């Protein structure tokens, strides 16, 4: 993965000094609350319900063992000994003290970490597929391009005060989209053109939140060398013409809709024509230099351990279930991709203790070349595990709580911190996730249901991506009471779709029953191996409505 050079280190150190200076001036009253607000937000620092919350960047989800250990130490020394993996591949601390934040940043900078632009109206952390570089069907490894975007967007002087936040995601697989690129402000799909040249299909104006939208394509093929100049053109058009009079209409999706995708694309092309050959245009050497950080680890030459695994599965049913659900195929023979699930019932989705962070660091060193990837589903991936070590790995992670074999099932819930922690939330989300997990504790039934995305957000801001859940749950405030609105049919993949609202909202205690009824309708109507989403698309929302509101 990427390693800082002297330039990155210098910029990171200067950033820590700058934020220390800003914090001191804020505490001394030289900066008003309004003036400090965007400065601290651009450093990931929110003031929350119970304490400040610090969101630490994990660029495109990659972490090394030493970084995990430092995170563990920071949660112990400055927080309550746990952290939270977010739905954008970042990490959050829930209880740091404002005056400690500069010291935390200094500790993080020592291991090449930061909290830059993890919040605020600026370009946020670029996200990608957690299986990048190890899956079979990708066009190219997207991570070097994510790093190129990270560097370009870091303290970009023109785009630090955009109308609203701005999120970029990159996907390189042709079959799957684990990065949900079509619901990002810019979604970049890596493609090859007819001549075999590498580039991007550019989606602009997707997003969740108050006005969920699937991002239309504004350019079918953008050559890779043109990536940054084109992004700069999109951002400039948005910076100049995005609405600033109404916070709820300030995302780029509203501008794209107002101008129409064609009209927006024309404006971008016109802007781009002036700057496409500027020095910001990437060079082959610059790309290759960054690609040099993402070369393959020293894989052993192995055969697939098919027979060994078959006998291990035969002997142990739980291992068999785990292998079927939490382990994916790898491009190298004899290797596998393991997802450690952070979804044990009773623990808020994505929460990890300091000890668990250290355990993950240890596992990464022992089994996966010392690196992990955080997923937007709030899990952690060991991307390069030898197949003949899977059983041993499984045995060690079972007691740690990382082997809940529910990946991509109904109980692998994406869930924001909700009203338990977040000042923006209308309702709690964690207890709803837990009550559903408890209701569906029969593994065989769960597996029989197949892949179902259940996404829960505590408010319209949609950190839990409820719009694109096959089943989405949104916390709403009804005259001071917490209620939950359910939507069906969402998808964040290549067939990205915004879910449809089922009807009036429900009380928290009714939610497990409501979900159970929805599942019943699916089970009654599905054909053979048909997944939930396809059944829904075939029969529509009415049968679900009838059953749930009967």
């Amino acid at each position, binding site marked *: 993965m990427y390693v800082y050079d002297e330039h990155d280190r*210098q910029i990171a150190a200067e950033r820590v000094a700058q934020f220390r200076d800003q914090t001191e001036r804020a505490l001394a009253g030289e900066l008003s609350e309004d*003036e400090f607000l965007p400065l601290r937000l651009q450093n990931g620092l929110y003031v929350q319900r119970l304490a400040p919350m610090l969101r630490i960047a994990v660029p495109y989800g990659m972490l090394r063992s030493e970084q995990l250990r430092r995170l563990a130490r920071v949660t112990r020394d400055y927080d309550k000994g746990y952290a939270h993996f977010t739905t954008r591949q970042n990490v959050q601390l829930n209880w740091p003290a404002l005056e400690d934040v500069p010291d935390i940043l200094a500790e993080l900078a020592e291991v090449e970490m930061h909290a830059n632009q993890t919040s605020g109206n600026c370009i946020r952390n670029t996200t990608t597929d957690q299986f990048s570089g190890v899956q079979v069907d990708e066009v190219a490894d997207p991570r070097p391009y994510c790093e190129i975007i990270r560097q*370009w967007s870091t303290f970009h002087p023109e*785009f630090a*005060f955009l109308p609203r936040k701005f999120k970029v995601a990159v996907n390189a697989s042709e079959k799957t989209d684990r990065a949900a690129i079509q619901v990002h402000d810019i979604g970049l799909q890596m493609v090859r053109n007819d001549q075999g040249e590498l580039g991007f299909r550019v989606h602009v104006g997707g997003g969740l939140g108050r006005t969920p939208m699937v991002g239309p394509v504004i350019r079918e093929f953008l050559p890779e060398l043109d990536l940054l100049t084109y992004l700069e053109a999109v951002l400039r058009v948005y910076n100049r013409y995005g609405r600033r009079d109404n916070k709820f209409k300030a995302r780029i999706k509203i501008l794209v809709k107002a101008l129409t995708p064609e009209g927006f694309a024309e404006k971008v092309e016109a802007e781009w024509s002036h700057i496409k050959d*500027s020095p910001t245009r990437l*060079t082959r050497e610059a790309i290759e230099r960054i690609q040099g950080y993402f070369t393959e680890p020293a894989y052993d030459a192995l055969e697939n351990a098919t027979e060994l695994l078959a006998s291990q599965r035969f002997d142990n049913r739980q291992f068999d279930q785990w292998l079927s659900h939490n382990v994916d195929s790898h491009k190298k023979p004899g290797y596998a991709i393991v997802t450690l699930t952070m979804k044990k019932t009773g623990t808020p989705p994505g929460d990890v203790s300091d000890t668990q962070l250290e355990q993950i660091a240890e596992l990464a060193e022992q089994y996966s070349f010392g690196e992990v990837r955080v997923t937007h589903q709030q899990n952690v991936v060991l991307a390069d595990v030898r197949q003949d070590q899977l059983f041993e790995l499984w045995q060690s992670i079972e007691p740690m709580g990382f082997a809940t074999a529910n990946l991509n099932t109904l109980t692998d819930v994406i869930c924001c911190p909700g009203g338990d922690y977040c000042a923006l939330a209308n309702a709690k989300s964690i207890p709803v996730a837990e009550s559903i997990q408890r209701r569906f504790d029969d593994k065989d039934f769960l597996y029989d249901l197949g892949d179902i995305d259940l996404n829960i957000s505590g408010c319209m801001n949609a950190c839990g991506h409820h719009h694109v859940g096959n089943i989405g749950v949104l916390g709403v405030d009804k005259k001071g009471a917490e209620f939950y609105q359910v939507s069906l049919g969402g998808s964040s993949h290549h067939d990205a779709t915004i879910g449809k609202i089922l009807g009036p909202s429900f009380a928290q205690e009714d939610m497990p029953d409501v979900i159970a009824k929805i599942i019943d309708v699916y089970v009654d109507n599905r054909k053979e191996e048909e997944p939930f989403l396809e059944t829904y698309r075939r029969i529509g929302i009415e049968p679900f409505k009838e059953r749930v509101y009967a």
Partner: protein
Amino acid sequence: MPEVITKDGAIKQDSWVVVSRPEDGESLNMPEQPALIPADLWLAGKEHFEGRDDIGVWFDSHDEPEILEGLVNELPLIAVNFPKFADGRGYSIARLLRERFGYENELRAIGDVLLDQLQFMKRCGFDSYALREDKDASKAARALNFFSQGYQAATDTDVPLFRRRAS
């Protein structure tokens, strides 16, 4: 006389006055001192102002600098207003004036100009800053130089870090 911060963080005294946009039906209220007038009004009355080195223009954040394409270097001073510091349109306007229209004279940030935005402004081509009066001008030099380098090309440098690394 008002104080203005220079690109190097020095404080200079200055007598330029920003003339606000007149209400409908009223005419520009021109002061004795050098004056910055709304850019579109300068353009509309250009023949009156020909050759004057004490008349400059200002753009508001929603204005289009394109209206002065080809004319910018007739002006001794252009200012861009930041109605609120969180309104980032002025950064794009500055880069367009400098990089696209080739403006070479003084470019000034006016309005809600605070310390922590100065380095962004400098990188986008502003070379003087009318710091908001309640802010401590003695801290400007530090704020202008929090960072010794940036990743991107902008107005201040046309060599992004990825090209510097290559050489």
